[in-house]
């Protein structure tokens, strides 16, 4: 290491100014969406955009309760269900992919088969084409097997999509470990199961957290498959969001912004919780210990 890392808060004015500007550029669309969520319809469409306005929670209310234009009655929307669907489907399928991926990655790393690299390559090929290429066969398969519109269907699909990426990432974490530590544990009397759960897994927790967050973000935002393969009961938020476009009153930007803002919260929360692990996870193996 050529020099020590700067201490936190001692980056100097130049770096601070540049990172602030870059951060602002990246964050500004998000900021704009969040502001819009608190605006009335008039404020939301104002040109130039208003930075100062009287905030309202009406948009958030109308995410869950809508007043019908024709009858004037207030009725609950299905948005609550869609949020539940998004959370349930994303967390379950990414969790499943991590569990299966970890087992596969450990096997690939520690008990290589003849043609190990070929298998790994084959696993990766499923991610090489754009998803839209396979959408028709998958749609037909789902129709045929009755998986279309079910939780199982979409979760299996997302799990399958997350596995290659999980296997590759997690295998690299296992490869980084010192195998003598596992041998030492064996000699100390640990069974193979204990070696795996007690010594390998704890050493790659940061990596698993990083893999989880990456997978979660990909799955959370997935639109195409969700649009075609979820039904009324299993619809996820991105699909529901798209369906607010058009309809009775044209584009309701305030409502859309409110949904987006709510949609940001779970992923923001997870990322925030795991941010320390995330940083260690993405730098795993790149920094010499």
């Amino acid at each position, binding site marked *: 290491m050529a020099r020590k890392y700067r201490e936190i808060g001692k980056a100097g004015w130049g770096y601070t100014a540049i990172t602030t500007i870059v951060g602002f550029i990246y964050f500004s669309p998000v900021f704009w969406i969040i502001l819009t969520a608190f605006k009335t319809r008039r404020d939301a469409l104002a040109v130039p955009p208003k930075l100062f306005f009287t905030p309202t929670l009406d948009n958030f209310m109308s995410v869950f309760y809508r007043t019908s234009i024709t009858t004037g009655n207030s009725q609950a929307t299905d948005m609550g269900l869609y949020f539940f669907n998004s959370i349930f489907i994303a967390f379950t399928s990414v969790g499943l992919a991590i569990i299966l991926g970890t087992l596969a990655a450990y096997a690939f790393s520690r008990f290589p088969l003849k043609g190990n690299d070929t298998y790994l390559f084959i696993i990766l090929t499923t991610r090489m084409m754009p998803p839209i290429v396979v959408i028709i066969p998958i749609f037909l398969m789902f129709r045929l097997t009755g998986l279309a519109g079910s939780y199982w269907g979409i979760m299996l699909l997302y799990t399958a999509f997350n596995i290659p990426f999980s296997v590759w990432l997690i295998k690299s974490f296992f490869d980084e470990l*010192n195998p*003598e*530590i596992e*041998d*030492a*544990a*064996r*000699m*100390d*009397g*640990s*069974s193979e199961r204990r070696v795996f759960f007690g*010594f390998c897994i*704890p*050493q790659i927790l940061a990596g698993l957290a990083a893999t989880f967050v990456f997978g979660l973000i990909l799955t959370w935002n997935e639109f195409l498959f969700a649009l075609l393969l979820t039904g009324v009961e299993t619809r996820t938020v991105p699909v529901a969001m798209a369906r607010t476009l058009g309809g009775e009153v044209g584009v309701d930007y305030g409502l859309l912004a409110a949904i987006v803002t709510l949609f940001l919260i779970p992923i923001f929360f997870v990322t925030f919780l795991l941010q320390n692990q995330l940083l260690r996870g993405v730098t795993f193996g790149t920094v010499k*210990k």
Partner: protein
Amino acid sequence: MSDLKVQNLRRTFGSVVALEDMNFDVAEGEFFCLLGPSSSGKTTTLRAIAGLEELDNGEVTFAGQDITDDPVQGRGMSMIFQTFALYPHLSVEANLAHPLRRAGLDSQSVRKRVGEVAELLRVTHTLKRKPTTLSGGEQQRVAIGRAIVQQPKLLLLDEPLTNLDAKLRHDMRAEFKRLHRELGMTMLYATPDQLEALTMGERVGVMRDGKVVAIGTPRELYETPQDKYVAEMVGSPPINFLTATGTADDQTSVPFLDHSVAAPGIKQDQPVTLGLRPHDIALANGGSPAATRFTGKIHLTEPLGDVTILDVNTRDITIKMVLREEVAAKLSVGEDIEISFDPKDLHIFDQSTGNRLNNDAGK
């Protein structure tokens, strides 16, 4: 009886033969060193004994029982790894306690035993810390502690000093000897460093290409190496090799001498390699026989404090010799010196096979 017997081990990795006809015995309570250059199969041998490596062939017998196919767990041996292999996610205390917990000791006995071992190895102050926060020497001692905590009958050590600096290596060599004396366990120590092997080993097995080619006490290996390879592996600075030919039966030429010298076991016109230890060459004095005197020019000196290693050029040959510091201090580079040796100190090896010819040479 907890002696270890290793018979006909064979292990291949693809087309690479790591071990071939590996044979040796270790007596109960012995400190046995395996000395060999890297990739000569030392680590594979230790791992095979521990059960971490599958064997293509061969048998490992320990305490009179064939353990070749036994699982790794419960062999009653421990190993100290080159990388120390401490559990990074556990505290030092948990590291030391792990073998005991697996053995099913109750927590009170575990705590007591961990305390004893920490005391013995002077790591008590680190018990609550994580291994990565320790210095190299402390990590090494914790690794030793974890290996001896359940009092194994056999301790395997795989180049345990390679990752330490010179000063620590010196201290740890003494530490290993002390532990061996105090604990009385059988130790099998693999090292590429002849100094470690000679200073610690009661017996040393010299390895080459997956085989033990010579076994003996350090003195035997140093004084009567059975072939050229062993002569080269043992001794520092390294032995001087000279190409020569038998001038008559039991007589050999020496490249930088005009006369032949006595060389028992040699045949007329037999091409040989002569080995001459740097320590066996001295400055000539009145008593030195004229036949083995020669003049050389000092080419290079390496003062080591108590002694100095000199490279001396004579007739286009460079030979190494060792002189006491106070003698060497009076000499300077470029100076001509008259030196001699005793022909009895010559190690004579067949040039093609490398085998020792003067087996009867009593010193």
